[in-house]
């Protein structure tokens, strides 16, 4: 386990350098290095203003999605839980499409609308899942998430059909996920925003261990199940909503990475959450790099790459867990 941890720690700088070095524009390693250290170098604009913030943002988003997935899986005691199960993707899609269909002017309109849509969907799901006695029931949560997500997706499709079809087809491309909109500004906003939710999740690690045994058992062992559930729900929703607003819907990170880390490290969240954060970050950076370098200058949507890579990975993980 020591070895794995060291390897993971090393993977971070290696991946970052690799990602900054590769892209739709071929740059020699020397040019990349010069771009990093010298503001006046010709490659500096690309390396510093475009690639570096993009790579760092992908890392943060990947980490956020990873730990959100891990925490949600503990919350609903279901290994198939994924940050988008709570109706988030439907709500975000609806927000984005609405912003485009009603021609909101600001350049930040789509991300903000996606965020609002995601949060709205999550609030609705929460409302549906709170049963009598104000307890949050995880089974109802999952069902409500599916239902709200499906409804939002249906409304989104209706809007697309009823309005300007070509523009909205492009809106769907945005939803498929991509870091094309990354900048130092976007990175700063996301990083600042994510600090508190991430810290709160890390702090809930032990409560999550207990919650995974069942709520009653968790309370007998000293956890405040209701408080933990609400905290996890709110923080993962906020993190995932911000991710969608930043870069569209990128699946499989929140589903596959926690599983792999449980196998490679431990299901105990004090180890799982940090490992998932770093692994999720590395995974998403690699996926984004692949999306940018496979068919230059074309970019594939990152969500497509994570699915293409994630599904076989998931299959392998499944076989190993069942073995």
């Amino acid at each position, binding site marked *: 386990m020591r070895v794995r941890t060291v390897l993971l720690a090393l993977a971070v700088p290696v991946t970052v350098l690799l990602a900054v070095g590769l892209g739709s524009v071929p740059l020699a390693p020397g040019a990349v290095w010069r771009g990093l250290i010298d503001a006046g170098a010709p490659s500096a604009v690309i390396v510093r203003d475009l690639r570096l913030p993009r790579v760092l943002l992908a890392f943060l988003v990947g980490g956020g999605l990873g730990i959100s997935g891990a925490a949600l899986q503990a919350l609903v005691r279901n290994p198939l839980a994924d940050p988008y199960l709570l109706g988030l993707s439907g709500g975000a899609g609806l927000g984005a499409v609405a912003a485009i269909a009603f021609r909101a002017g600001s350049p930040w309109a789509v991300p903000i609308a996606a965020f609002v849509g995601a949060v709205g969907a999550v609030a609705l799901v929460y409302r549906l899942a709170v049963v009598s006695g104000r307890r949050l029931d995880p089974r109802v949560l999952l069902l409500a998430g599916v239902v709200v997500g499906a409804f939002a997706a249906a409304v989104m499709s209706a809007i697309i059909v009823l309005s300007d079809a070509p523009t909205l087809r492009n809106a769907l491309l945005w939803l498929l996920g991509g870091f094309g909109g990354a900048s130092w500004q976007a990175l700063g906003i996301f990083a600042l925003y994510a600090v508190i939710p991430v810290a709160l999740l890390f702090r809930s690690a032990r*409560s999550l261990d*207990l919650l*995974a*045994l069942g709520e*009653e058992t968790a309370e007998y062992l000293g956890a*405040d199940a209701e408080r933990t559930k609400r905290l996890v729900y709110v923080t993962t929703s906020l993190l995932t909503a911000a991710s969608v607003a930043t870069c569209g819907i990128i699946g499989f990170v929140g589903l596959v990475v926690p599983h792999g880390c449980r196998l490679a490290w431990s299901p105990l969240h004090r180890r799982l959450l940090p490992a998932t954060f770093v692994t999720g970050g590395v995974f998403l950076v690699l996926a984004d790099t692949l999306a940018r370098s496979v068919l230059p200058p074309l970019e594939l949507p990152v969500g497509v790459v994570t699915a293409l890579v994630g599904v076989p990975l998931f299959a392998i993980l499944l076989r190993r867990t069942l073995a």
Partner: protein
Amino acid sequence: MILSARSLTVRYPGAPRQALDGVTFDAVPGQLLAITGPNGSGKTTLLRALMGLIRPESGTALVGDRTVETWGREALARVVGVVPQREETVFPLRVREMVMLGRYARLGPVAAAGAADREAVARALARCDATELADRRVDELSGGEWQRVRVARAIAQEPRVLILDEPTASLDVRHEMELFELVRELVDDGLTGIVITHELNLAARFADRMLLLDQGRVVRAGTPVEVLDREVLGRVFRWPVAITTWNGTVPQVMPLRQSERGDSRTE
């Protein structure tokens, strides 16, 4: 540490009748209290109410000299160790990690586990004769082993009160007896013990006092001899029984077969 109930009355929301009705008893250190009764008599509800998971309609549950509501979850878990009837193992841990969960109430969210915690875990495993299981995964254990590990976890909490809910369901004779012997030892060392069980005969042999519940009410309370009365049991369980004696003093319940009814053989 004394655990008490005073006129505890609980009604589940929307239920036609009360799940618990005026239950009063004391569980004291050095004594093993067995709570029995037919299915649906409110045994597990009593546990939940005692631990503050359910708000009573009236009456109080006391842990030590304070009502259970005044205890925080973590503080309560440092004092009362519960082995619940059921729990989930969606993400299986190693036995050592599972028992360490019992230390969480003492560690809190931030502090790292130290030597003292690891020793408490080792002692708990040794007490439950589960040391060789330490590195096994929890989903690879047999029923008896799994139960021992959960008891070890409760012991690792270093509680003053130990509560077990139906601990011998699905255990064979050997494991049943081992478990009850262990609980008896712990109680003799000074713990307050409560066992919720269907096993009237095991309760009679190991417990100091018994509580018989029926439809949420305490029908009989006292020593096994006082509680295990043929008529009362026949009425409560709605099945005719005979009471025999083991070793001259311990009452044992013998449910009668159809062909054996009407036989006036007793004692």
